[in-house]
């Protein structure tokens, strides 16, 4: 970890930028929810914005963007199993036989 002074100034700037983007995106989500759209579009939009926001938090506040390989790969593994989890509800719609 660097405790170099120039470095921390740079950090500070990045953090502020991220913070402002997060606030703006929150506003956009709320605003968009008042615009009448189809349910599908609404869900897609909200999830996309949420994903962007969470990537910002994970990437910058949690320093994932410069994190070590081992942590990165652990997260990739988790992401895959997360997708398996999301497969549960999809199974009930994907299958042509209804129950």
């Amino acid at each position: 970890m660097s405790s170099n002074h120039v470095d921390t100034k740079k950090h500070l700037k990045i953090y502020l930028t991220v913070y402002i983007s997060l606030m703006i995106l929150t506003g956009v989500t709320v605003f968009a929810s008042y615009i009448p759209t189809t349910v599908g579009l609404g869900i897609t939009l909200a999830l996309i914005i949420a994903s962007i926001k969470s990537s910002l938090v994970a990437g910058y506040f949690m320093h994932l963007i410069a994190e070590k390989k081992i942590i990165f790969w652990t997260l990739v593994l988790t992401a895959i199993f997360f997708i398996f989890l999301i497969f549960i509800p999809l199974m009930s719609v994907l299958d042509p036989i209804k129950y």
Partner: protein
Amino acid sequence: MSLEIIPYTIEVREDTGVNNAKLGIWLFLTSEVMLFGALFSSYVFLRIGAASWPEGSSILNIPMATLNTAFLITSSITMVMSWLSLVEKNFSAYKKYMLVTILLGLAFLVVKYFEYSAKFEHHLYPSTNTFLGLYFLMTGLHVLHVIGGLIMNIYLLLPGAKMWQSYPERFTNRVETAGLYWHFVDLVWIFLFPILYLL
């Protein structure tokens, strides 16, 4: 005494590039991802199968939740600033930022308290319908996480901060680790907010 003999408690191991706490907290967070992932998955499952589903915005209070979102996001940046202050060896700034982080967390809980009591006043309970059940379950679990984080942060602000004198690197690491957890709690809320309130 057992601390001294365990390698890589503070220093980074060369071939993995991390120390023990960093790896440990990330592993913990992966399990949290699976916990909330299962809840999200159940949410979608139940919603797809439901005969009817209320619109979150018609039952829940969006302005309050937006305010809470702002609280948590702001607390995330103050948390990261408190860590950065320690890296810069500025202990008094650390204390200030940490205090603000804690206050913002408390503010979140206060808002949540009003939200919950408003629901109960209108006789909206977990048993009212599956949507409200999920709302109370998911936000309740999240609130538990916030409380856990607050306890940790208060510890790091008050009794735990003594370590800054004896063992500054280790203390900085602790604050960083606590921060990772706190940002994760923020991150979960970022998903809960649209899914429960806006869709």
